[in-house]
C-alpha cells in the first residue's frame, strides 16, 4: 500500500516536472526563435531575405559582418557603435550617480519639501517621456546641443533620477541604526554615505548602472530628434536609415549591437540576483 502511494507520488512529481519543463521549453522557444532567426539571417550569404529557403537562409557566410565594418562609405556602423557606446557609458555614469544621490537623500534625510517632491516625481513619472520631445528639441536648439552627443547624455542623465524609487526602497531596507552608530562614533553624513551605505548598496548600484546603460543603448526617438549628422548617429538611428535592400546589414548590425548588453548582463547578473535576494531577506 505504502509502495503504491510512493509510486503514485513520484509519478505525479515526474508528470508535474515534465509538464513544467515542456511549458518552459515552449515559452523559451517562442522568445528565442525570433533571435535565432535574426542571427541566422545576419549570416545569410545572399544578403536578401527573399532568397531564403522557407524560414532560413540557403547558405551562410560571415561576409555581411565584414561588410558591416569595412564598407563604411554610406553606413558607418563602427562610428555609430562608438557613438552609442559613448552616450550609453556617459549616461550610465552620470545617471547612476544622480539616481543614487537622489534615492539616498530621499531615504535618509527628512526635510520640508521631501513628501511634495516625492509626490511630484511620482506624478511626473506617469507621463510618457516622449510627451515633452518638442520642448526638449526647442530647449536643445537654444543651448546649441543639437548634433552633440553630450546633449543626449545630459538628457538621459537628468531624467534618470526620476526613477529613484527602487533605489530608495533599497536604502530604506538598510537599518538606520548603522547610521546612528556611525554618527555617535563621529562620522559625518558624507562618510556615512560613502563608507557605510554605498558599499552596502553595491548590488543596487550595479542594477542602476545596468538599466542606465541599456536605455540609451537601445533608444531611438531622442537620438533621431537631436542628431542630424549621419556620423553622429547611434546604432538604433543608423540601422533605421538603412536602404530597403540592406536587410542583411540590418540583421548583422542588430545582432552585433546586442552583444555588449548580453556580455554586460552575464558579468553583472550575480550582483543583480544578490540585490534582489538581499532585499528579500531584509524585507
Amino acid at each position, binding site marked *: 500500500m505504502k509502495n503504491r502511494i510512493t509510486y503514485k507520488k513520484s509519478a505525479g512529481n515526474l508528470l508535474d516536472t515534465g509538464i513544467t519543463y515542456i511549458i518552459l521549453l515552449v515559452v523559451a522557444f517562442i522568445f528565442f526563435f525570433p533571435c535565432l532567426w535574426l542571427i541566422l539571417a545576419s549570416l545569410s*550569404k*545572399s*544578403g*536578401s531575405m*527573399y*532568397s531564403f529557403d522557407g524560414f532560413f537562409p540557403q547558405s551562410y557566410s560571415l561576409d555581411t559582418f565584414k561588410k558591416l565594418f569595412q564598407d563604411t*562609405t*554610406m553606413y558607418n556602423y563602427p562610428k555609430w557603435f562608438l557613438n552609442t557606446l559613448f552616450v550609453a557609458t556617459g549616461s550610465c555614469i552620470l545617471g547612476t550617480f544622480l539616481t543614487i544621490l537622489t534615492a539616498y537623500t530621499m531615504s535618509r534625510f527628512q526635510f520640508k519639501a521631501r513628501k511634495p517632491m516625492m509626490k511630484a516625481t511620482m506624478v511626473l513619472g506617469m507621463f510618457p517621456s516622449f510627451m515633452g520631445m518638442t520642448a526638449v528639441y526647442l530647449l536643445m*536648439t537654444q543651448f546649441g546641443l*543639437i*548634433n552633440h552627443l553630450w546633449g543626449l547624455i545630459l538628457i538621459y542623465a537628468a531624467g534618470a533620477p526620476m526613477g529613484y524609487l527602487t533605489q530608495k526602497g533599497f536604502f530604506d531596507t538598510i537599518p538606520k541604526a548603522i547610521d546612528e552608530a556611525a554618527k555617535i562614533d563621529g562620522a559625518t553624513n558624507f562618510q556615512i554615505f560613502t563608507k557605510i551605505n554605498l558599499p552596502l548598496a553595491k548590488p543596487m548600484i550595479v542594477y542602476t548602472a545596468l538599466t542606465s546603460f541599456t536605455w540609451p543603448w537601445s533608444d531611438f526617438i531622442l537620438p533621431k530628434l537631436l542628431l*542630424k*549628422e*549621419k*556620423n553622429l548617429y547611434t546604432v538604433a538611428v543608423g540601422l533605421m*536609415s538603412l*536602404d*530597403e*535592400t540592406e536587410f542583411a546589414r540590418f540583421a548583422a548590425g542588430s545582432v552585433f549591437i546586442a552583444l555588449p548588453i548580453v556580455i554586460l548582463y552575464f558579468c553583472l547578473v550575480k550582483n543583480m540576483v544578490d540585490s534582489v535576494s538581499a532585499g528579500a531577506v531584509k524585507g
Partner: protein
Amino acid sequence: MRKKLVAACLLACMVFTTTACGSGSDSKAASKSGSDGTGSALFTGELEENVTIQVLENDTAISEGYFQELIDAFNEEYKDKGIQAVDANMDQYLDLANDGPYGYGPDVLYQANDVIMKYAEGKHILPLPVEDLDCYDQIPESAWQAYQTEVDGKTYTCGVPVNVQAPMLYYRKDLLPDDWESTWDKDSDGVPDMTENWSSMYEYSVARHSEDSSKYGYMKSLNDMYFASGFLFSYGGYIFGDNNTDASDIGFAAGEAEKGANVLSQLASAMNEDCIDDTITTNAYSKLADGTYFATISTPDVYSTFLAELEKEYVSEGLSEDDAAAKAKENLVMTSLPQLPESGDLTDGSTEMIDSKSMGGVNGYAISSYTKAPNACLEFVKFATSYEMTKLRAETLGVAPAREDAAEEVGGVSKEIYQNLDNGNIILMPSITEVSQIWTPGQTFFIDLAKDVYRPESEKKYTSLESMKAGLEDMCNQINEAITTLQ
C-alpha cells in the same frame, strides 16, 4: 503719476512698434529693388568669401562616387575664392521645415520636385534667378514648370532640374526564350515583342508561369500609385486639371482611364498575391537577379542596385567578379515602357497600340532660405548643373539628364526619357501641396483592384469597365474630400 508712467510706456511701445514696422517695409522695398528677375534679392552676385556650404545629395550619387567628384571639382575651381562645398552628411529624407530655421539644415539640397515645392510653399527655399543659368535654355519648359510657383501674379522658380525620374522597364536578356527571335519578334525588328507591348508581355508572363509555377514574367506591386497611375494616364486620365494646377478638377477617372485599370487587373492576374502589397517592390532586385521574375518596372536611379544584385548572383554561380560585372551589364536591360493596346484589353489580339504614359518627377537642386551664403550656393548650383557635370552624373549613375545637350550626348535610355518628357509621355508630379492627398486614396483603389483578381468569382467587384470607372470615380471623390477637409 502712475497714469502718466503707464501712458509713457504705452507711447514708447507704440513708437518702437511703428519704427520696427517702418524699417521692415523699407528693407523689403530695398530688397525688391535689388532684384530685376524672379530670383531672391539675396542673389546679389557678390560671392561670400571663406564660406563652407553644406550640400545634401542623394544616396546613390554618394555611394557611386559621383558626389565626391563633384565637390572635388567645385572646390578646386573655387579655392581662390575661399568657397568650399562639403557633404551635409544628413539623411537624404531631411526635414528642412523643422531643422532649417534652427540652422541644422543643408545650404543646397538635391530632392524631387514635389519635396522641394512643398518646402517652397513654406518659404524654406529661395526663388532662383534661373534665367542667368547656362542650363536655362537646355531644359524643357515642362521641367521648369515643376519648380514654379505663383505668388501675387508673379512666377518664381525654386529649383533647377537635373535629372528626370520616370518608370522604366527592367528585364533580363538572358531569360528570354532561346527561340525568341522566331517566336517573340513578330515585327522582326530585333527587339523582343514582350518589351515592346504589354499584350505580348502579358502573354509571355502567362506562358512562363505555366511552364514553371515558381517563375513569373512581369511582376510589380500594384499598390504603388506612382507606377500604377501611368496606365490611367495612357487612356486619358490625369492628376489635376489646368496643367496640374487646379486641384478642384481631379482626373484619375477622366477619358477612358478605366481601360488602364483593366490592363492593370489583367497584368495582376499573371502575377501572385504579392502584387497586392509592397512585397514585389522590395524583392524585385533579388528576384530579377535569381531569375524568378523576368521583368519589372522601376526608376532609372536604382539601375545600379539591380546591376549589383545580378552581379552577386553571377558570382554565386561561379563567375569571377569581372566576368560577372560584364555579364550583368550585358543582360540587364533598362528600356522605355512597352506600348498599350488601344482597346484596353491585353488578350483580344488587337494590334493598334498607343504610347504608354507615366507619372514622373524631376530631381534637382534648390537653395535653403536659411543659408548664410546664397551667392556661393548659387555658384555651386551653376557648377553642378553645367553640361560637364550633368553628363558625368548621367554616365556615372545611369540617370536621365534634364538638359537636352547632355541627354543627346549620353544617348540611349537618357535620350529616350528626355524625349518622353519633351513629348508629354511623362506627366510630372504636380507642384501644388494638394498632391500629397492623392496617394492614400489611390493606393486603396489599386490594392482593391489587385485583391479583386484573387477573390472568388462570386465576390469580384471589378467585373466590367463600368465597375472600374465607378471605382476610379470613387477614388477621385475620396481625394477631393481629403483636399477639401484639410484646406
